[in-house]
């Protein structure tokens, strides 16, 4: 019996962890390629969830199509955010960019409250209440979907960054933006693609998680917080770090919640930040950057 509860908690943790990974990957991508810490990242998660809700409601499409539309729409917003905010600010000091991104976050949250209303909404998915039973383990189809889609997308992203021409240009920019520009890499294009990927990933996370909990316009601050914990745990700028960091955070939270108390689960995230910063400031997989 106890093993079943343990297995169930680990399963819960892995699914939650996969959403953290999707959120953190975009955050870490923007940092590693463009050296931008984007506080508005959580807002794209929120928009992903809300766009899914409205696509389903206004266009009358099914959940999967709505999620795809939302992801693409928010990815397109990523182009806009880059054009209007991050590209013009690229030569400014890191803090200026950081504060601007905080401003963008507030703008999007309050805009969301104005546009969508403060009432919580529920993204309807046919998979949300359907239960998959494996032995005594109980998981909803939606949660299986989160895990599987998350894994596939991350694999695809990994292949894209390793093998595609654009991926190589992104890695070159990450290593040395000026050097990359000198060898003919179109930095502007790299910026755009990076933001499209990051915002798309955040939106996908929102679209997938939407049906497991109620959504409201301030949910983005929760998402960006989880993203930062994962990124600090895994190392800023490391995608494998985000993967392992996210899944571990999910499982640690589930076990702490399951065996100590859910009331502690959140505190554990913060404790992790402090411990990692003291013991291994570059994160578990980070490359030390001394300036």
């Amino acid at each position: 019996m106890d093993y079943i509860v343990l297995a169930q908690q680990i399963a819960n943790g892995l699914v939650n962890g996969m959403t953290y990974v999707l959120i953190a990957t975009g955050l870490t991508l923007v940092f590693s390629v463009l050296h931008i810490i984007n506080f508005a990242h959580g807002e794209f998660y929120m928009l992903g969830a809300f766009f899914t809700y409205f696509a389903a409601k206004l266009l009358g499409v099914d959940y999967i199509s709505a999620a795809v539309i939302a992801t693409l729409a928010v990815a397109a917003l990523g182009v806009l955010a880059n054009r209007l905010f991050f590209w013009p600010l690229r030569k400014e000091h890191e803090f200026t960019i950081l504060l601007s991104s905080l401003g963008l976050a507030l703008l999007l949250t309050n805009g969301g409250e104005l546009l969508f209303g403060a009432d919580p909404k529920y993204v309807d998915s046919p998979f949300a209440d359907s239960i998959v039973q494996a032995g005594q383990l109980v998981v909803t189809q939606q949660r299986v979907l989160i895990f599987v889609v998350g894994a596939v997308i991350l694999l695809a992203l990994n292949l894209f960054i390793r093998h595609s021409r654009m991926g190589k240009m992104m890695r070159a920019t990450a290593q040395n933006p000026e050097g990359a520009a000198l060898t003919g890499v179109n930095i502007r294009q790299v910026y755009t693609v990076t933001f499209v990927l990051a915002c798309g990933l955040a939106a996908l996370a929102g679209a997938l998680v939407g049906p497991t909990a109620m959504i409201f316009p301030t949910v983005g601050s929760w998402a960006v917080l989880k993203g930062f914990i994962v990124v600090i745990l895994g190392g800023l700028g490391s995608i494998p770090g985000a993967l392992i960091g996210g899944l571990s955070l999910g499982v640690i939270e589930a076990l702490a919640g399951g065996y100590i108390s859910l009331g502690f689960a959140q505190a554990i995230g913060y404790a992790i930040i402090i411990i990692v910063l003291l013991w291994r400031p570059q994160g578990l997989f980070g490359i030390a950057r001394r300036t």
Partner: protein
Amino acid sequence: MKKTRWILTAAAALLAGSIFGASAEDKAPVRIGTIAPLSGPGAFDGQLAVEGMEAMAALINEKGGVLGGRKLELVKYDDKGNPEEGVSAAKRAIEQDDVDVIVGGWFSSVALTMKEVTRDRILNIMTSTQHPNTTKEGHKYLFRLNATSTMMSDTYSKFICDKMGLKTIAFITINDDYGRLEVENYRKLLGQCGIEILGNEFYNKEDTDFTTALTKLKALNPDAIYVSAINTAQGATIYRQIKQTGYQGTTIASAGNMNPKLVELSGKALEGVYSVSLYAPDSDNPRLKAWAEQYGKMFSNEPAFIGTLGAQAVELIAGAMDEVGDARDYEKLAAALKAHPWDTLLGTITFDDIGQAQQNIYLVQVKDGKITSVKE
């Protein structure tokens, strides 16, 4: 020549201004400091509350306002559901904006700290807070409309003990003053009638996933899970996730936290679930009907219990001010409120010496997606 004409015009304008100013001064609105959670997870509940107040204020203003023609005006502050924000909002309301009365205290943790700012300074109507200490440690100008969680649990536990046929129960409660007290109350009351309490899980007001806690509770295999959720967003998530973890037993909703939006968002997960409330939506009180009609004209949400409490606060403030003939004589206003029963949209209400309201408590159940009162 031109210059003197200018000066004359200016002087005339000044004079006119002071005359109109004076007459406007006579009819200055009565300003109600409205402190509610307008952002964060409790934002929707705050919105319902404020909408309830606005609908009642509009009704009263339509009939000519209070104190011989003064309109009621809400001055809104966002407490974000945080005690600290509630304190600073109350300070701003009193010190900077000089409001006439304060209505607030939707969440207990906010009410408990905010009352120290308003202590003996201003008439403070607390609304949905259920923690007994809000009034027990209140002050001479403090009133609370909702029943305390102790009063609610006395009524509710009798029903749970006598009618639901449970042997075991487990709780999932919010980790704040209100939630901790709830668990304490029910442990005692349900323990007395022989229901075994198998466990309790606390969650925080920022949490969005409850599967971990629910997995743990499900493993204890209780006959029922009692859910104490004070905000709609988390409540709906918990009710849905209870079903999603495969739990087959009974779900019980905490007292005073049932609203149409919660029912809509929770879908089938709330069907048949009981709660207790001061608000019976199927009541035929004409005051309630007039308010609900006004509410429907002004807002798109369905009126909820929390909105009726806000409306009741406005109704009582207007009534007391008209009776006393002053908006600021808190001594007299407080005495008037305590002096006799008041007819309101929720029925008759009386206040005891510490400002605690006594109102009817109804048992309600969700049937076919509607909140209905249970007639015994």
